[in-house]
């Protein structure tokens, strides 16, 4: 057990580059087994499912509930911003499946975001559906399109897939403009306010649309995080991470790379599409050349990298970054400074903290607290993932 971890520890001291590498890989949901640190104090080791572990989880749950309730009491503007944070967090959580966990960099997720948004918009405006009923349709549409765009992943490495996704992201506004009768084209698609009336059973009036949307977004975010959590810990999630860390080793262990990667791309697109649906409901007017361009795709990716690729909470932090960095920097540099900050942040984070903010925080917590599996079992996801991550 200690062979790899001691190795990792010595890298921490001696060779910064490799320590980054190790940290980046480990941040991806494969915590190192507990081991004594060499710096005097041992971390507090608790077992998964034990009383201290459960009470910590409970504290976390209560804190999250408190934050959510605080958000529900905010004024209209701040609550709207928070809703946007949540919407982007959902979209970035989708991107995280492909880029964070599977290592397929996507530069075109703005298109999935837009696809979800337009699915909702078109069904609501043209077919008079209830807005929230369109979400399952958007999931299916985005999943199928994700499979198609992810097809190049069947044969080749990430670099080429990135080109395909880049083209997908750039081409999306053009497709929207082409089908102007359906999408409103360049002038945009406007969803009338009354069409987004909250359902009667919620008790919200039309004037409380913002609050309804906030609660809907919170509910979907919780659902998405739950799904991602379970997905990543499942057998399929292990296959994702294995194919990211070492394709050849994964394939020789029986992972069907083509299927795993393509499906990952589909799932990723579907989740981002859900974010798009909520975005359509939030904004009420869709203009592809504004909201779903290549720069938006890069913003999503920036959010993910800042928050932390392959981490559970990275997307949330990423959502905060994507919403608030442009908000606070809008007075600097003729309104273009957000792009510069995003670009600089991408480069700085790749150099200094590849695990992102969430990953860095988790690593710091790891110095004082470690959660280990309860009893040794023949099949343990954490341990079986760790060695493959350490192999060169």
């Amino acid at each position: 057990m200690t062979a790899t971890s001691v190795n990792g520890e010595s890298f921490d001291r001696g060779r910064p580059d490799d320590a980054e590498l190790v940290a980046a890989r480990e941040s991806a949901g494969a915590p190192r087994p507990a081991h004594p640190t060499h710096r005097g104090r041992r971390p507090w080791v608790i077992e998964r499912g034990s009383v201290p572990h459960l009470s910590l989880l409970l504290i976390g749950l209560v804190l999250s509930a408190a934050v959510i309730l605080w958000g529900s009491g905010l004024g209209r503007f701040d609550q709207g911003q928070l809703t946007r944070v949540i919407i982007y967090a959902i979209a970035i959580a989708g991107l995280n499946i492909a880029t964070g966990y599977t290592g397929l960099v996507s530069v075109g997720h703005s298109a999935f975001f837009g696809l979800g948004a337009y699915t909702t918009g078109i069904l609501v405006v043209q077919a008079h559906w209830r807005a929230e009923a369109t979400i399952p349709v958007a999931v299916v549409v985005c999943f199928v399109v994700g499979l198609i765009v992810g097809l190049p992943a069947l044969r080749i490495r990430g670099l080429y897939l990135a080109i395909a996704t880049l083209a997908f992201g750039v081409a999306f506004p053009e497709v929207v403009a082409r089908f102007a009768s359906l999408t409103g084209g360049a002038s945009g698609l406007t969803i009338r306010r009354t069409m987004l009336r909250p359902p009667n059973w919620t008790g919200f009036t039309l004037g409380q649309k913002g609050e309804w949307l906030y609660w809907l977004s919170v509910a979907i975010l919780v659902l998405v995080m739950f799904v991602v959590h379970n997905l990543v810990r499942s057998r399929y999630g292990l296959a994702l991470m294995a194919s990211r860390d070492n394709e050849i080793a994964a394939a020789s262990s029986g992972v069907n790379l083509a299927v795993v990667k393509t499906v990952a791309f589909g799932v990723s697109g579907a989740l981002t599409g859900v974010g798009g649906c909520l975005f359509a409901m939030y904004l009420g007017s869709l203009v592809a050349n504004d909201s779903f361009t290549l720069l938006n795709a890069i913003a999503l990716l920036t959010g993910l990298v800042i928050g932390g690729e392959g981490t559970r909470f990275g997307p949330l932090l990423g959502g905060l970054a994507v919403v608030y960095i442009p908000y606070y920097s809008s007075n600097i540099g003729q309104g273009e400074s957000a792009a510069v900050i995003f670009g600089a942040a991408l480069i700085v984070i790749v150099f200094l903290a590849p695990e992102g903010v969430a990953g860095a925080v988790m690593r710091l917590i790891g110095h004082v607290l470690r959660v280990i599996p309860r009893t040794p079992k023949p099949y343990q996801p954490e341990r079986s993932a760790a060695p493959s991550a350490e192999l060169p």
Partner: protein
Amino acid sequence: MQIFLDRLSSGLTAGSIYVLIALALVVVFRCSGTINFAQGEFALFTCFVAWWLSTKGWPLALALIASMAVGFVMGMVAERALIRPVRRRSEVATLIVGLGLFTGLNGADGWIWGPADKTFPELLPHSPNDYISIAGSRLHYDSIGIFVGMLLVVLLLTLLFNRTPFGLQMRAVATNAESAALSGVKVGRVLSVSWGISAAIGSFAGVLLVPVLPPNQLDLSSFFSILIFASAAALFGGLDSVKGAVVGGLGLGVVESMLNGYGTFLGGSLQLTLALFIIVVVLVFKPTGVFGARRIERV
């Protein structure tokens, strides 16, 4: 016949532009095995430099040379300072640094020069009367100029690759960087200079093409779609092949022009989708492209 020739010449003009940016991609890919996503934004930045110099009263030819020099330095610095340190770590890291450059440069252009569109001065004669007539079809001088410029770059690159010691070193690095290093080739310098050359080609292309492309103005998203067309062209021909980039670029330009002219099903507005389609099909069925060398990866 006249309409056909018109479409052919406009296709060849657009194709030459794709060829130029595709060549920039190919030069980088040959040496470092990666795609520079910021290629278009390098070109955009240097176009802004050329535009800015021309507003200061510089003659455009001089501004072009200055912007190519800026591009060369940018390419070298980007490779040395940003790409090389992360290249060995992972492909994902390289991609993300490239995207950081992409969005950072795009924002910087807007920050320095303002987000409004710029009217770009023309390097080539462009008035409606500047044309020669072939079988009733008009061949404008600026189209000819771009085509000749493209041929010139292809010629120079071919000479560089095949006839100079530095080209030999570049090919050695592309084939096997370690062996090249053992034979005394300064791999790092070769890589930096290749990135510089590629960025300089990009700025040359940019200054030529901005006045010719449909909006005829310099705008922050000018190069998004050109990068996509160029990638489609480079992928189709094979990312490591100069010949492939030329054939792919010209082919794409002509096909696109003919489809817009004769096939109405695209509605004249789905060019990017066509490029996306080509990219996906090439990647799925023949990832090495038509002229690309088969790459064998050691397990």
